[in-house]
């Protein structure tokens, strides 16, 4: 046996997945809706999620910004027939790395203690921000226990 039975009773299982859709009101730039999904009402504070989505949106806006740096990158790459991308990382890739680190950090600090998990949008084709909802430890059924989330938010 790898666990004692008590631990097993507390192992979480996936309840549902909530998807935050893209916000196309500003065109085809990558933005996610700030609307708070009702399924997460008991699991996480509204402001925390909205803050995460806002930060993500700002990262994507930075990646897709059309300005001096993107022109320079584009012209330089064109002049070298795009061979320069063999040695250079594009600005978008740099920002994607930052985003991935940010999501990891958010998962560790905020979402995992509440039984949630954010999935990086790049792994879902940049279409949705997927939030996996796990059942809380200590609860027998699939309904989330509010005592657990309030306990973990004390960290």
């Amino acid at each position, binding site marked *: *046996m*790898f*666990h004692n039975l008590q*631990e*097993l009773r*507390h*192992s*979480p299982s*996936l309840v549902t*997945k*909530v*998807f935050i859709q*893209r916000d*196309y*009101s*500003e*065109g*085809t730039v990558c933005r996610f809706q700030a609307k708070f999904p009702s399924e997460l009402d008991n699991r996480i504070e509204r402001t925390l999620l909205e803050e995460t989505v806002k930060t993500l949106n700002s990262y994507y806006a930075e*990646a*897709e*910004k*059309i300005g001096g740096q*993107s*022109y320079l*990158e*584009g*012209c330089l*790459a*064109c002049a070298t*027939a*795009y*061979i320069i*991308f*063999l*040695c*250079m*990382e*594009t600005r*978008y*890739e740099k920002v*994607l*790395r930052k985003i*991935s*680190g940010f999501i*990891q950090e958010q*998962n*560790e600090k905020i979402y*995992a203690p509440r039984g949630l998990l954010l*999935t*990086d949008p*790049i*792994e*879902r*084709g*940049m*279409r*949705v921000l*997927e939030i996996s909802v*796990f059942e809380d*430890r200590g609860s027998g059924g699939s309904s989330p226990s509010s005592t657990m989330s309030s306990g973990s938010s004390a960290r």
Partner: protein
Amino acid sequence: MSAVMITRKVRKWEKLPGKNTFCCDGRVMMARQKGVFYLTLFLITGTCALFFAFECPYLAVHLCPAIPVFAVLLFLFVMAMLLRTSFSDPGVLPRALPEEATFIEMEIEAANGNVPAGQRPPPRIRNVQINNQIVKLKYCYTCKIFRPPRASHCSICDNCVDRFDHHCPWVGNCVGKRNYRYFYLFTLSLSLLTIYIFTFDIVHVVMRSMNGGFLNTLKETPGTYPLKLSLTVLEVLVCFFTLWSVVGLTGFHTYLISLNQTTNEDIKGSWSGKNRGQNPYSHKNIIKNCCEVLCGPTYPSNIGTAINPTVSVTMFIVLSLQKTTAPLIPNEHTPDDAKPSIAASAEKNASPKEEHPAATKVPPLASPETDAETSIAKERAH
């Protein structure tokens, strides 16, 4: 929390259900029918080979040695753009995973309400407002997603492609958001190359005939005169016909870029006729439109090819008695023989994978995951 987080690198392109072929470890992606692409390659390399072999020696000596040099550079640029267009991911949108598809279906049903039996349900359309213009997002039954604005489903490749322009058989691939600028530069540079070769072919014939009669030019070396005649004529003919089509195509795409439209939108007449001047994606400024399309950011691939070849899938797994497998992070209960295999798989995930053409020194997602693994394991211990 007793769950553990594992990282498993899964290449999305390996599981892509569309009709594409992949090779070189996912770095090359093309449509299934490649015959016309090989024809394109043959025409370009064949004509250039003839030019270098028969025209260039004469022109380099009698006119200027820079002529063949420039021709070589131009030829290399054309080939680079062609291969980049043909082999890169045009911006394929991966299909929805089952949970996402179910979620969308539930939203649709909630929006439609109860449909009386026997009646056809309303078409699945979502309206969004972009820059004060209502744009309809259609639902794709194959990919089970609502297509983002400007995306379209390519029936030849069986994928939804972002900012879908058209499927080009000459390059053997779709032209979409990620490879449109390479396609445009390909047509532009090919036009220049064709004009260049055509001009210097004519110059060559004129120069030789000035040195002594038209027929004499072709009689220089008696044994090769019919060959030289036919090759020169062949080159001129190929260039002449290519010129009209490629220059026309370049002109058409220049027009589209200045208006920030795609071929698909132009054909459907989305922003023309009574809708003229209402394109919500246009900046209403030709220079800005050109800059956005040609000098905009280089978007990452959503299916993990070339530019972003390794995509990792991070997930929680539940340790349960039903699966009699060892936990993936060794703890005090792990049998000793399972520990080395766990360490080995963790190491394998962390090792950098090489990528081409855009190489990064460290795969972007390797280190944060392994750090997260250890931190979650620590949390477990509490």
